[in-house]
């Protein structure tokens, strides 16, 4: 069991993008690890590309950062030339270009989500290799393995904004419970015609799952509350 501080920074991660009846909700955990060490317990994996398009990053932290930096740069120029906000489809395609043409070197899975006036809320999944898949919802990262069954059961079309966000928070929280590479807080970004809202859900605000217990300040509080009897064996 070794720290291996020379291991590449990887966002083990759980990332999610979900469409609802007015836009999209993006969600992610906040754990970045170097081997088994948690290098950053409060990372922000939902990165802005334009005012109306964001991307969830997973896999290699470095690769996903540099890809999103390039795409933000291209989209900035594109927006100026176009004279209006870029569409989600164009953003996804730019990511695809970089991901596909550098597939031998990159190790990052991305979920692009946003809102534009032509198509409304859209989610595009871009896994390793550079495939682009437009989906009503997308999950990615190591934590997503634990969510396929959950989404098969819980996903439905035409959710409200509140339902969609609750679904995302619940899902990331479930993945964090079982994936060692995911953890920390749950971040969400909601994008619709009105704009962008960022939310933050620390561990203590989430519901408890199987075999999880209510957090305490200390064992001493439990012992004092229980009275003078000794601890049970």
């Amino acid at each position, binding site marked *: *069991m070794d*720290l291996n501080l020379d291991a590449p920074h990887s966002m*083990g991660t759980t990332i999610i993008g979900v469409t609802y009846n007015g836009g999209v909700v993006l969600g992610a955990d906040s*754990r*970045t*690890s170097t081997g*088994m*060490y*948690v290098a*950053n*317990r*409060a*990372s*922000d*994996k939902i*990165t*802005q590309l334009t005012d109306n398009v964001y991307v969830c990053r997973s896999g290699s*932290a470095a690769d996903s*950062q540099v890809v*999103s*930096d390039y795409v*933000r740069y291209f989209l900035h120029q594109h927006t100026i030339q176009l004279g209006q906000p870029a569409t989600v489809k164009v953003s996804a395609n730019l990511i695809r270009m970089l991901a596909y043409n550098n597939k031998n070197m990159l190790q990052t899975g991305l979920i692009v989500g946003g809102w534009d006036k032509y198509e409304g809320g859209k989610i595009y999944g871009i896994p390793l290799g550079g495939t682009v898949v437009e989906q009503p919802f997308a999950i990615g990262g*190591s934590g997503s393995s*634990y969510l396929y069954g959950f989404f098969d059961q819980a996903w439905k079309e035409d959710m409200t904004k509140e339902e969609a966000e609750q679904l995302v928070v619940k899902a990331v929280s479930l993945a964090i*419970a*079982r*994936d*060692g*590479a995911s*953890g*920390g*807080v749950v971040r969400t970004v909601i994008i619709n015609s009105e704009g962008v809202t*960022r939310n*933050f859900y*620390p*561990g*203590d605000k989430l519901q408890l799952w*199987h*075999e*999880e*217990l*209510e*957090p*305490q*300040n*200390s*064992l*001493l509080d*439990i*012992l004092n509350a229980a009275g003078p009897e*000794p*601890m*049970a*064996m």
Partner: protein
Amino acid sequence: MTFTVPIDNGDSVKIAEEESQRTLYPYVTGTSIVAIKYKDGVLMASDMGGSYGSTLRYKNIERVKAIGKHSLLGASGEISDFQEILRYLDELTLNDNMWDDGNSLGPKEIHNYLTRVMYNRRNKFDPLWNTLVLGGVKNGKSYLGMVSMIGVSFEDDHVATGFGNHLARPILRDEWHADLSFEDGVKLLEKCMRVLLYRDRSAINKLQIAKITEEGVTVSQPYSLKTFWEFSSFHNPTAGAEGSW
């Protein structure tokens, strides 16, 4: 690992053959144990997780067990090997009781036995994939030691395994002192366990603290620690530095 049973089908007979079973790599693993000596004896903390690679598969594993009347054994590493060690110790303590001579094995003896077991397995290239922490009190004297899977064995006032070596021991070096009260000892261990919870990928938020004194062993009920996330820089870390982490 092959184990062929004698078959007589007329053509040939295969003789029962048992290669040494080896834990080549661990499957279900426990993470750190942290233990300290305090005024009345020894305190030992561990979480209740059994990881299966990067999956947090089991969340109710007790990794600290009482051995006889005078000792506490905590283990990190492969859980099946820990269970095997508990069977060996059961056999040892049973035989010790059967002498019925009023003597009982103390922590020093158990630690020595475990050291021999671990080292001899290592010499056969067939290790028990654990790091063990052995604490106890006998005749008023506290004892705390550890043995690794390669047979490295020593005693100290405070020990830790796995990630605890890197994250907990610096805290203990700074803040441990002789004659800690029970309350201070628990708080110190909780401080270490909280850091491990933040920074060890295989840690889960469900722990037990075990205490051993002259009177005997008590293992606390499982409980969770509160965690802190309200730093302002955690709320919006990339404001002003879009694309960073």
